[in-house]
């Protein structure tokens, strides 16, 4: 009798132990496999490759920190860095404030708000490649519709080379980015605004608060964490910017719109087939991008949104 209880008990224990470890393990295994094979392995290789010189054909040689030392003296790298800072700061400022203001207007119980939201959201679903190509046609100096429009309005003096002008190229790209992302950030703000209790606004109105006061002293403080998320998202997006810029200018003219992403790509895959690929050096640039975006990703997770997502 006693023996059988013990057996029973240990059997039970065994089953619960199995449940505890094996069941989750079985459920996690497929995802873990793909994460290991297609993120972890290449990531480790990237870190190692940053310390090597390699043209992709001959065997790689270890050169320690040489790639990173060379980066520090590379004018194009610093130019790209400067452009990334310029682009990131500008897009972050505009792509936070403008969507916030527009979401606020659309949240004021206006008729037709749904239609406006739908329209502003449309560019979001289109790929960065397609919008890049579309705007490249629009900005084209000789045949582009933008200069055409200016000419037909009698503003011939205002026509520009746009993407071919080294001072205008980044502002032009920023404008496209604002146009493309407006609907996305507007929706995030709009969704958050729906969560602000209505009686806050009502009691403020009774106290004589006008539209600006309500925005400044209720909406903005209530949206603080949403704003942080939007700012961080914009910052990460700016640091990683590649698709749209590559499609519109490939970093040109003469590096005027070069970002870390385009410079990395050019170094690795020789856009014009002009030089040998420097895979180690390009990977060092990739590691710089990784470090900067990790810093902001960690800030984002620290803001504490991770557990608040609801579908």
């Amino acid at each position, binding site marked *: 009798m006693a023996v059988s209880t013990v057996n029973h008990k240990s059997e039970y224990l065994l089953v619960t132990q199995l449940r505890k470890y094996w069941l989750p393990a079985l459920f*996690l295994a497929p995802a873990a496999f793909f994460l290991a094979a297609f993120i972890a392995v290449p990531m480790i290789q990237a870190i190692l490759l940053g310390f090597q010189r390699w043209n992709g054909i001959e065997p790689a040689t270890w050169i320690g920190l040489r790639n990173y030392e060379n980066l520090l003296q590379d004018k194009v790298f610093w130019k790209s860095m400067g452009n990334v800072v310029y682009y990131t700061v500008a897009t972050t400022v505009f792509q936070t404030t403008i969507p916030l203001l527009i979401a606020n207007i659309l949240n004021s119980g206006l008729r037709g708000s749904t239609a406006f939201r739908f329209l502003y959201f449309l560019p979001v679903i289109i790929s960065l*490649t397609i919008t890049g190509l579309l705007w490249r046609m629009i900005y084209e100096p000789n045949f582009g519709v933008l200069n055409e429009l200016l000419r037909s309005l009698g503003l011939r003096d205002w026509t520009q080379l746009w993407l071919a002008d080294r001072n205008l190229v980044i502002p032009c790209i920023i404008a496209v980015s604002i146009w493309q992302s407006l609907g996305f950030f507007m929706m995030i703000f709009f969704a958050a605004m729906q969560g602000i209790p209505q009686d806050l606004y009502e009691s403020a109105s009774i106290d004589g608060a006008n539209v600006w006061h309500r925005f400044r002293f209720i909406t903005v403080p209530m949206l603080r964490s949403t704003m942080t998320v939007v700012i961080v998202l914009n910052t990460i997006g700016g640091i990683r910017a590649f698709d749209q810029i590559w499609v519109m200018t490939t970093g040109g003219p003469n590096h005027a719109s070069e970002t870390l992403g385009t410079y990395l790509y050019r170094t690795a895959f020789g856009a014009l087939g002009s030089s040998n690929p420097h895979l180690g050096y390009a990977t060092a640039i*990739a590691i710089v991008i990784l470090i900067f975006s990790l810093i902001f990703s960690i800030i984002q997770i620290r803001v504490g949104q991770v557990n608040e997502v609801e579908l």
Partner: protein
Amino acid sequence: MTATDQYRIIQSIRQLVTYAFLILLSIVMAFPLLWMVMTSVKEQREVFTSFLPRQLDFSNYERVWHAMDLPNHLGNSLYVAGINVAIVLITATLAGYAFARFQFPGRDWIFYVFLAAMMIPGQAILIPMFQYLKSLDLLNTHVGLALSMTGGAISFATFLMRAFFRTLPFELGDAGKIDGCTEWGVFWYVYLPLARPGIATVLIFQFMGVWNEFMFSTTFLISPKLKTIQPALYQVIGRYSVDYTALSAGLLLAILPILIVFLLLQKQFIKGLTAGAFKG
């Protein structure tokens, strides 16, 4: 004039100004898209003369359809997206369920490792991935491209599915077990059917991500015939540099599949995308 009249007038002026602003903004937002639609149905020599086409000319669509071999590239995109989305959905649903429903030692740590994967930018692994696919003989194949885009995507999709499963009541599983379900049965018969909206959101989000992806697609597929739609369009702009009518038609045809999904499932679509805001 009474005070209320004055108030009403101020109110309506304010409303008028607001609407004027929103409509102006709508014009700016819609103009590039409208221009693309208009250009795609114009005759070539009409492009620079007027905004509206004199008559609808759909021959551009036919021209770009054949000259660019669009069906081939659209098919390639669909194939890559199909493989990738299937892998991501299956693995992430299982993993998300495990994180939400099971208690096991080290759960939170493992979850953070999963999260960390989505903070890695594509650029960081672009070059090693190229070499890696080459060594696996998967470079310049659709399967290779589909696999290269699984890593970060699974991480994010797991995160979403976990969040979704956590909204479902625990009692359901216990009830299922009392009724004699195995753990697998609880997952398969009880929770999975309830998770459909979450799965739909992840599906849409992931499909759009793969359909619109450019950097990996343009790097890992080398043969022109194998190219997916985004790099194919990019390649073609050199050849059609001033044939704006054909190019516009091509861009529109590439947007169409996403646009249809968006129009049909707008709510899920926006949910999926804005949930993406909380991704690292």
